[in-house]
């Protein structure tokens, strides 16, 4: 590797995830405007633009942007109603916000030279912890102390219920970890793979193969971006069902 480095064969797949301040300096405080801030802002503006411009005319025969906005709305509304039941529909705005933010961050991150905010665990942990804390508080508010009955599996034989309770408690507290790492890990791994394959293009012989491979992986990443947003949202609905439906189901 060391002797090849001189000929320009260098791959830095993780450089795309470096957080940089936009306006000079190296110090990053909590108020520093970085590329993460920029791309989160672009995602929020894009979502607002799509929904506000799409629903401005409210025509009977929808325009293209109106159909996209209506399709997204209907898709998430159906999912919330199907998974959490009728009582869960009032949490639809939160679920819709989560879905649109993650979807737009994932898709904007696929633009060349852009920054994928959802590839950072710091971003996804905040999203997952909001869901976790929200669901826990909501569960205790709705069901009182009966929410703890979720860990006491009454359908199992009495002898193994304590063991099951321990496993259920552990799995409950692992939820925010897997919820956030899944999103960040998938996005980070996919983008790193694109960069590693693109790095092979410096060998002139391999470049036609590399162009095909990068195109194929890019198409896969488009699918992954949508599927991961969907998975994050549907898991939010599954967790909400525990809190809204209570332990009795």
């Amino acid at each position, binding site marked *: 590797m060391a002797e090849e480095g001189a000929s320009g064969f260098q791959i830095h797949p993780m450089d795309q995830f470096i957080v940089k301040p936009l306006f000079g300096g190296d110090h990053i405080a909590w108020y520093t405007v970085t590329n993460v801030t920029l791309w989160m802002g672009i995602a929020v503006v894009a979502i607002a633009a799509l929904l506000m411009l799409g629903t401005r005319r409210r025509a009977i025969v929808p325009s293209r942007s109106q159909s996209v906005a209506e399709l997204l709305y209907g898709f998430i509304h159906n999912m919330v109603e199907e*998974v959490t039941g009728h009582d869960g529909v009032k949490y639809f705005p939160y679920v819709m916000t989560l879905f649109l933010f993650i979807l737009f961050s994932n898709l904007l991150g696929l633009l060349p030279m852009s920054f994928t905010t959802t590839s950072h665990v710091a971003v996804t942990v905040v999203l997952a912890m909001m869901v976790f804390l929200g669901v826990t508080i909501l569960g205790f508010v709705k069901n009182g102390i009966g929410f703890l009955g979720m860990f006491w599996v009454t359908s199992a034989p009495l002898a193994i219920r304590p063991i099951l309770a321990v496993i259920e408690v552990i799995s409950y507290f692992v939820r925010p970890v897997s919820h956030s*790492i899944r999103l960040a*890990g*998938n996005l980070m791994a996919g983008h790193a793979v694109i960069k590693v394959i693109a790095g092979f293009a410096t060998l002139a012989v391999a470049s036609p193969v590399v162009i095909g491979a990068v195109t194929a992986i890019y198409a896969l990443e488009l699918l992954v971006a949508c599927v991961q947003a969907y998975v994050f949202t549907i898991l939010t609905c*599954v967790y909400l069902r525990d809190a809204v439906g209570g332990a009795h189901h």
Partner: protein
Amino acid sequence: MEGDIAEMGKFIGAGLATMGLGGAGIGVGHIAGNFLAGALRNPSAAPGQMANLFVGIAFAEALGIFSFLIALLLMFAV
């Protein structure tokens, strides 16, 4: 060659940790394969089970992602 033996152990450990992702591959393939087998027998019931399919895949995949996390921790955090 440079670096010390702790550095070498880090790289070997990270490489070994990625083998856990093979298990996630087996799990995801098992779920998707069984879904397809069931869907071909009863195609009319398949669309209603898409949500369950994705939730199942997500849970199976999460455990593989944990080993990827260990690899990343070994490479960049240890």
